[in-house]
């Protein structure tokens, strides 16, 4: 495992709510003591349901959410930032290194700016170029890398489809040549046919530009395909973290298992699945005692109600926060994957690939 590009230690983001008696205001613990380190050059996945705190975590890494406690350290070998202590005037220079791609390519692009101006804006705001010619050169270069038609730079965003808009949005994110990119649900709003195209582009750009991603998604199947390491969040905490293959071949946490089995299988004959998750994620203002997952966990015991599990080592680079993982763990014989699709479905995929 290479050195971390960005790492958090016991990072918390808390939002006090209005109202309540002074001194007893309810606090939303959006991110609660999370320690994660993202190795340089990795495609790091962060998954969880809505309300799990994954977006807030990603924003905190960019100082776009307030850091209540803990440390965030960014170190690319040239510059080192203690992200929590960056002063306002330094923030711009940090943001040339760390950037974000948003979910909704319809909302993220100003309808009144041409594609060229949208992509050029970060360079201008950060004052990274000296002349318009230089700006144009950089815009054209990144647009080409993002497979945009250079003829299209003069047009306005409304002329483009969702996939093309997301490529414009990616070009804007990358034009200042950041090293670290938070991609927050970057493909969630796209059709599956286009989603694959944008995922492939993100992968190609990672190689070409030496990027490190934090890829935030609620879709485990997307994460499984693109990320090399995955952390699973629930109610502001990390439940499990492991290299992708390891996680999907041998998930330890009941929550990870439940998330995996909730993904609709393409096999119409595998409609009934073992792990069904009941209920919904509780409110972060009033999180359950003990293990935060115990209210929905199919294997929770009395102990889980009282005792909060810590993240513990469960294998090579694999951590899990569950009191019962060892007793419940059944290694899958022969390793991964745990189940193969029926041959006819594999055939289809292979035929589609030609």
């Amino acid at each position, binding site marked *: 495992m290479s050195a971390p590009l960005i790492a958090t230690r016991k990072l918390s983001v808390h939002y006090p709510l209005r109202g309540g008696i002074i001194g007893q205001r309810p606090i939303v613990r959006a991110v609660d003591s999370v320690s994660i380190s993202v190795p340089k050059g990795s495609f790091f996945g962060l998954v969880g349901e809505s309300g799990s705190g994954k977006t807030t975590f990603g924003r905190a890494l960019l100082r776009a959410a307030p850091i209540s406690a803990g440390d965030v350290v960014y170190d690319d070998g040239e510059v080192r930032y203690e992200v929590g202590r960056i002063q306002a005037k330094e923030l711009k220079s940090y943001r040339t290194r760390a950037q974000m791609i948003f979910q909704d390519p319809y909302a993220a692009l100003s309808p009144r700016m041409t594609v060229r101006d949208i992509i050029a804006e970060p360079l201008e705001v950060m004052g990274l170029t000296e002349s318009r010619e230089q700006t144009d050169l950089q815009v054209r270069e990144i647009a080409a890398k993002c497979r945009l038609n250079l003829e299209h730079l003069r047009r306005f965003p409304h002329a483009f489809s969702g996939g093309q808009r997301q490529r414009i949005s990616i070009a804007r994110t990358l034009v200042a040549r950041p090293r670290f990119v938070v991609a927050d649900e970057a493909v969630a709003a796209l059709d*599956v046919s286009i989603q694959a195209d944008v995922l492939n582009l993100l992968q190609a750009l990672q190689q070409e530009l030496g990027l490190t991603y934090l890829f935030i998604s609620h879709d485990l199947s997307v994460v499984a395909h693109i990320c090399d390491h995955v952390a699973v969040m629930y109610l502001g905490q990390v439940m499990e973290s492991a290299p992708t293959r390891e996680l999907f071949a041998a998930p330890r946490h009941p929550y990870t298992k439940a998330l995996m089995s909730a993904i609709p299988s393409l096999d119409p004959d595998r409609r009934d699945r073992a792990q069904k998750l009941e209920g919904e994620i509780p409110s972060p203002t009033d999180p359950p005692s003990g293990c935060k997952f115990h209210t929905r966990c199919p294997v929770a015991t009395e102990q889980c109600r009282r005792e909060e599990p810590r993240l513990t080592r469960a294998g090579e680079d694999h951590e899990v926060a569950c009191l019962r993982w060892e007793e419940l763990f059944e290694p899958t014989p022969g390793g991964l994957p745990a189940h193969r699709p029926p041959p006819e479905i594999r055939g289809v995929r292979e035929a589609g690939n030609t």
Partner: protein
Amino acid sequence: MSFSLEAGEVMGLVGESGSGKSVSARSLMKLNAKNAVYGADTKITLHLDDGPVDVMALETARDMKIVRGGAISMIFQEPMASFAPAITIGSQMVEQLQIHTDMTRKKAREVSIAMLDRVGISDPAKRFTQYAFELSGGMRQRAMIAMALSTRPKLLIADEPTTALDVTIQAQVLDLMKDLVAEFGMGIIFITHDLGVIAQIADTVAVMYLGRLVEQGPVREVIRNPVHPYTKGLLAALPQLDDLDAELVPVAGDIPSPLERPAGCVFHTRCGVAIDGVCQRVVPLFTQLSDDHRVSCHRASEQQVVV
């Protein structure tokens, strides 16, 4: 496009944004915008207990009540946008029951609360008095389903009902819908762009592209033996947990604007196996592959051999 749907059957309608899924489904209730022109030979027949209804012949809003919210109900992707924000869930449910049935207010209230309970909403009497914003996304979608089914429709149109939900909640809602089909026996048209969801809930599937049906058949056959290059493309683009090594292959290019509909086969501009000089000019007819599996592709006969 032509299709038929039986009571108790779930038909998946699949395709990208802009393929015309929602427009087709809304036509069944003549719910499209006023400037919509229906083809002269369009025929939509709804078979109710007391005889068939010719939907295209319905003109006034009064007549249309039979189909809109009566025999046909619809649920949408974003339930927050479908509930009136300033009226309680309960009043909305009672209102529509009073429009479509001759229930008394009291009876309508009982039926609504029972229905909320049936779709798995905890403390239904309390939810009845709440507003849509007080419910979580999953609960809102359940309430939407309760409202849609309380008039006992023959047909439920579900337009991307789970797309905005978390996978865990999506699994719960899909289960609920399967149970409800078994219990109430209505037909469902389930619109989605996710073939995984289709595999989980549908009996038959119809794949649409630019306003045309390109492939249609029983769900097992279409997913295991897709014949149309577009259906194959949708399957190849879908990430699956079963096979992490499979490369994700996007369908090349973007869906053309409906204003620039390609001549010949509508898919030829993105098709990897288009036959030069044929697909660009000739609209493919449907090839019947088996009793109920049919496809509209010039390559259909040879592809059958490949598969």
